[in-house]
Structure formats: structure tokens, C-alpha cells
């Protein structure tokens, strides 16, 4: 009887965890580069966005669609928010809960824009939306400072295979 209770309790706990929105963790550029490098044959699509950026928010569904289209494939999509750190609780987490984003959402843990913009790409003026495609194993990187549709994302991802 006791063990049954524990099992039911566990099931309840797991189901609420599964329904809960994802945690939004912080990431530095160094941590991002380490993930890309250790990802071997995984292609990383790293989108830089913010809750206050309307065109960024508008293109997020394309990234969700891409994730579904390549489930089980060596593709990892990271949605890195450039919102202020002070906006993590009041803006970013509620946004993620509301939209139910399934791609991993992170918040950039960097304060020096002068430095980190160039580290992502010399071609980046700082405008968002912007998206980096990187494959550590193949040592290939492409950077786009523009909005990308699902079709465009798909075409660029295909070119990395």
C-alpha cells in the first residue's frame, strides 16, 4: 500500500514536471562555444532574440517547426535571449511559459556588448534577430543578421549536412 502511494506520488510528480515550462538558464559565450565544440557532428542553430523584439518573436515558430522536422537528427536549436538579466523572471520566463517553446531557451550572461557581438561574428552589427549556424566537428560557421523563415532555416541547415 505504501509503495503504491509512493509510485502514485512519483507519477504525479513526474507528470507535473513534464507539464511545467522549461527552466531558462544563463549561458556565457564561452559556455556556448564549448557546447558547439563538444557537439561533434551536431549542427547548432543559435538564434539571438529578445521578448521586446517583435520580428524575433514572429520568427520563433519557424525554429519550433524545424525542431519537429528533424527530431532525432544531429540538430540542436538554442534560443538565446538578449533581454536584460533583470528581465529573466518578469519577462522571459512568463514568455516561455505562455508560448510553450520546446527549443531550449537561454539568457545570455554577458554584459559587454562590445566584446560579445564580435565573438559571435565580426559580421554582426548588433541588430536582432540574428542567427548563427555552427558545426564544431566540421568547423563550419555561418551567420545571418536577418529574419529567417522556416524554408530558409531548412535550406541553410541542409547545406551543413
Amino acid at each position: 500500500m505504501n509503495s503504491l502511494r509512493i509510485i502514485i506520488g512519483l507519477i504525479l510528480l513526474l507528470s507535473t514536471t513534464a507539464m511545467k515550462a522549461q527552466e531558462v538558464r544563463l549561458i556565457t559565450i564561452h559556455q556556448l562555444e564549448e557546447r558547439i565544440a563538444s557537439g561533434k557532428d551536431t549542427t547548432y542553430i543559435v538564434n539571438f532574440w529578445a521578448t521586446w523584439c517583435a520580428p524575433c518573436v514572429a520568427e520563433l515558430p519557424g525554429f519550433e517547426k524545424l525542431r519537429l522536422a528533424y527530431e532525432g537528427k544531429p540538430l540542436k536549436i538554442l534560443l538565446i535571449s538578449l533581454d536584460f538579466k533583470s528581465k529573466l523572471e518578469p519577462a522571459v520566463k512568463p514568455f516561455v511559459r505562455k508560448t510553450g517553446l520546446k527549443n531550449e531557451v537561454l539568457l545570455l550572461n554577458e554584459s559587454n556588448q562590445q566584446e560579445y557581438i564580435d565573438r559571435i561574428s565580426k559580421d554582426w552589427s548588433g541588430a536582432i534577430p540574428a542567427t548563427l549556424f555552427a558545426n564544431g566537428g566540421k568547423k563550419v560557421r555561418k551567420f545571418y543578421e536577418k529574419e529567417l523563415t522556416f524554408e530558409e532555416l531548412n535550406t541553410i541547415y541542409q547545406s551543413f549536412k
Partner: protein
Amino acid sequence: MKSLMTLCFVLTGLFLKAQPVAGYQVGDIAKDFSLKNVDGKTVSLSDFKTAKGFIVIFTCNTCPVANAYEQRIIELNTKYSKLDYPVIAVNPNDPGVQPGDSFEKMQERATEKGYAFPYLLDPDHLVTKRFGATKTPHVFILQKTSAGNRVSYIGAIDNDTEGTNTGRTNYVEEAVNALATGQKPATSTTKAVGCAIKWKKS
């Protein structure tokens, strides 16, 4: 097959080609322009006979980063128009794509906030593209020389978008202070996160 693939790649490349970002580099001479101001009159750089230079800022009504900087832009003009480096604000966004940046909305904003500087419309992005602005806010400081208006600084207003760091570096102030005393700005290009320009859909 191979040539077909090559063709695909070339087409993809063309298709994905970003907006031209050539524009001015520090040291270039900026061409004058004539754009319509919120008061309906046309403004050119040559109208400012006594100016020693200009703080040209691509900004708009709708970008939250531009909004965060609005008061600082107003203060820059207050401080530096006295030193003959007035602010010239240009809205680079297409109102078809971003209705909040229409000419009427610009007029409302300028009146409401009491802009004491021109707030200009750039309908076909001609000036925006010539400068190579990519986002709002995006600053180009010009210095009047015998050869023309020389681009002396390109980039951000400061390194504190959120406006919470009292120890911030005021890039634009430092650059204009240097120019006003006959020196070259120590930092002539910076980068900052901003809103991509809303280009007209072709």
C-alpha cells in the same frame, strides 16, 4: 547532378543575401541629404551654417532599445547643440512594415517629447543605406571639414542600454568632446544590440 547542386547553392546564396551593409566607414565623407522633417520642411546638413559637426542618429518610435535611449538622445542634443554639434534624428523604418513609425506617429512623438532637433523621414531607405545603418539606435558622428562632413564615429550611444550603470562609458559624448577640442575620438567604432531596420518589402 553536381552542377545542379552548385546552382542550388548559388541560388540559395542569392536568396539569403542580407541587406547591403557597405555604408560609410570612419574617415569617409558623408554626402549631404534632403529629408522631410516632422514640421513638413526639408532639412539638409548644409542648412546648419554654424554647425561644426552633427550627431546623426538613426532611431524610431517603436524599438524598445531606441525608447530606452530617447531621453539620452534629447539630452545629447541639449548639451551638444550648444557646442554646434546638433542631433539629427532619422527614422529608417518603413511604415508599411512598422505602422508605429509612420510620419504622423513621428510627428506625435516629436511633439509629445518636445524634440528640439530634426526628426526626419527616410521613405525609401536611401540615406539609411548610404550611411550603412542596420539598426536603431545607430549613431554616426560627422565633423565638418574643408573636404566635407567627415564620418568620425560609428556605433552606440553608450555601453549601458538598461541605464542602470552609473559608471557607464558615454561613447558619443567622449567622441564629440574629443572632436570639439580638435582631437580624434579615442574610440571611433562600437557595437551594441539594437532593433533591425524594418526594410520595405519588395
